[in-house]
């Protein structure tokens, strides 16, 4: 089965400056190859307040009959894409870095982006922090570019592979603050006894979106639109466009 080569994303808006962050210097992975998977297979590359095992099980249950693989590391994402996945569910910046056009876009409050925040000890406003922790969305250079664009300032970036690891950067004083979706801030506070302040980042980040990578992926796009509200909520999404 031949793989569909998505056209390069062309609808670049102000916010997709963020969606495109990190694309520079990265070789698009979506090159013509023979898709190996017979059944539709979905790769999920999202960092939520749950382990990848739990995320995979939740989506496997909601998308019965579709092979779901949730990964946390950028290297694992690259391997999964190269092995012939039918579709990819990830944040907009990740899709853009791969040159993949979103087929289904997540919305919350009628918008396709969400606010991000810095969370840390004292003085967490942009311009005051020097070392910022972030999930390694796009590899070393791509993630640094992503963080710089969201914060509109250059900082040293400490990368981790999971959302939960970010709290450890604060606990061990390996970062002044961490960058995360604003909706996650209360969850982080709940997990920690540290005194934490937050401030909103200047730029927003695209919500999760699905890119179809092979014709089989169209089935996944249709099915994703019908997943239960509770699952969408876990993904940080209220509806799909």
């Amino acid at each position: 089965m031949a793989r569909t080569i998505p056209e390069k994303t062309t609808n670049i808006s102000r916010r997709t400056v963020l969606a495109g962050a990190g694309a520079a210097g990265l070789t698009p992975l979506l090159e013509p190859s023979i898709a190996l998977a017979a059944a539709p297979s979905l790769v999920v590359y999202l960092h939520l307040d749950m382990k990848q095992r739990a995320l995979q099980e939740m989506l496997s249950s909601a998308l019965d009959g579709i092979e779901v693989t949730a990964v946390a590391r950028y290297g694992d994402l690259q391997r999964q894409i190269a092995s012939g996945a039918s579709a990819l569910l990830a944040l907009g910046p990740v899709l853009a870095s791969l040159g993949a056009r979103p087929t289904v876009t997540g919305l919350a409050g009628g918008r396709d982006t969400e606010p991000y925040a810095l969370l840390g000890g004292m003085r967490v406003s942009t311009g005051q922090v020097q070392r910022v922790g972030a999930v390694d969305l796009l590899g070393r250079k791509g993630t640094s570019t992503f963080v710089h664009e969201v914060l509109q300032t250059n900082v040293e970036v400490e990368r981790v592979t999971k959302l939960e690891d970010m709290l450890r950067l604060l606990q061990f004083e390996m970062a002044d603050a961490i960058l995360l979706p604003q909706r996650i801030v209360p969850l982080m506070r709940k997990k920690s006894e540290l005194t934490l302040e937050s401030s909103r980042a200047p730029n927003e980040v695209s919500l999760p979106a699905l890119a179809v990578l092979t014709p089989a992926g169209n089935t996944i796009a249709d099915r994703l639109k019908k997943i239960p509200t509770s699952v969408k909520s876990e993904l940080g999404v209220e509806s799909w466009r």
Partner: protein
Amino acid sequence: MALTSRLGFCLGLLSLGLAACSRSSGDARHAEAFFQDPVRRPDHDAVLVLMPDTEHTRAVLLGIRDEVGDELDVLVRPVDRDLSAEEIEAMLAELQPRCVVLMDNPTVKAYRELQLARPSVTFPPAVVVMASFLEEHYRLVKNATGIAYEVPALTLFTHLRTILVSPVEKVGVVYRPAFRGYIDRQRELAKREAIELIGVAVPQHPSVRDVRRALETLRTERGAHALWVLNDNGLLTPELIQRAWMPLNETGRRVPLVVGAASLVSAKFDFGTFAMLPDHGALGMQVGALIFKLADDDWTITRPEIQPPLSTKTVINLRQAERDFKLAPTALSQVDRIVN
């Protein structure tokens, strides 16, 4: 298999420090391909990785390659416990790496012997990983930095609080005198999250009675909400597990036991409630980030420090946990593997 035999097997794996993952020599061809050097790029610096060949070390290597492979040539030499200082010296002379990654205790020991044998030689910086209680020993290796292999108490019990409904504010630990410094540092770190780490020391060669008494003190007199089981072979002999640790929860108030090896959480015997151990792929990525910091500093160690492993994996003995403790509604979304 009798209980003692099963425990002996699990503990044998623990004593390797790389539990349950040694590879057979049968897939030598596969190993050869896995360890094949990349084509050297003339304008790229090289990093030499010395590692035993196990499932876990391979996962770490994969993380290192993912992290630095585009910019640095990662050269790997699988080694065994008999690695000699002379062998390392020959590798350094041949490959001229800007940095050396040392995995596991015997590798570190051989590297240190080489440094001692060649006191006037300047060695490339070393990043040590997967070595036991590294914070206690890393200063013995000149020009070294690294990542500890033990998950800090702070990390363990902050995470445990997301799994259990009951409070996790006082945590007990039994330790031998050699571990006192380590426990003191862990106690200070744990305070950051309002966790009180209560230690009870036992003799260097503790009897069943010593360990039993220490555990009972922690549970009854000190009111520990959970117990942290160190990866210390001296406290985890089959006899001590079977006659001191395991009987603890047969009577009285039950306390969760948090262990540091997945092999100690089993449906076949009632020992560890939870295991929390480093995520090896993420550990490799963390090593890669340290290597990049060294490269940025012209291959010198400007901030000698041992980092904690930032990313962990959690295993739960679900049958035991559900029977003895109240789990948070989202508890199972916070664990990587369920043993049932």
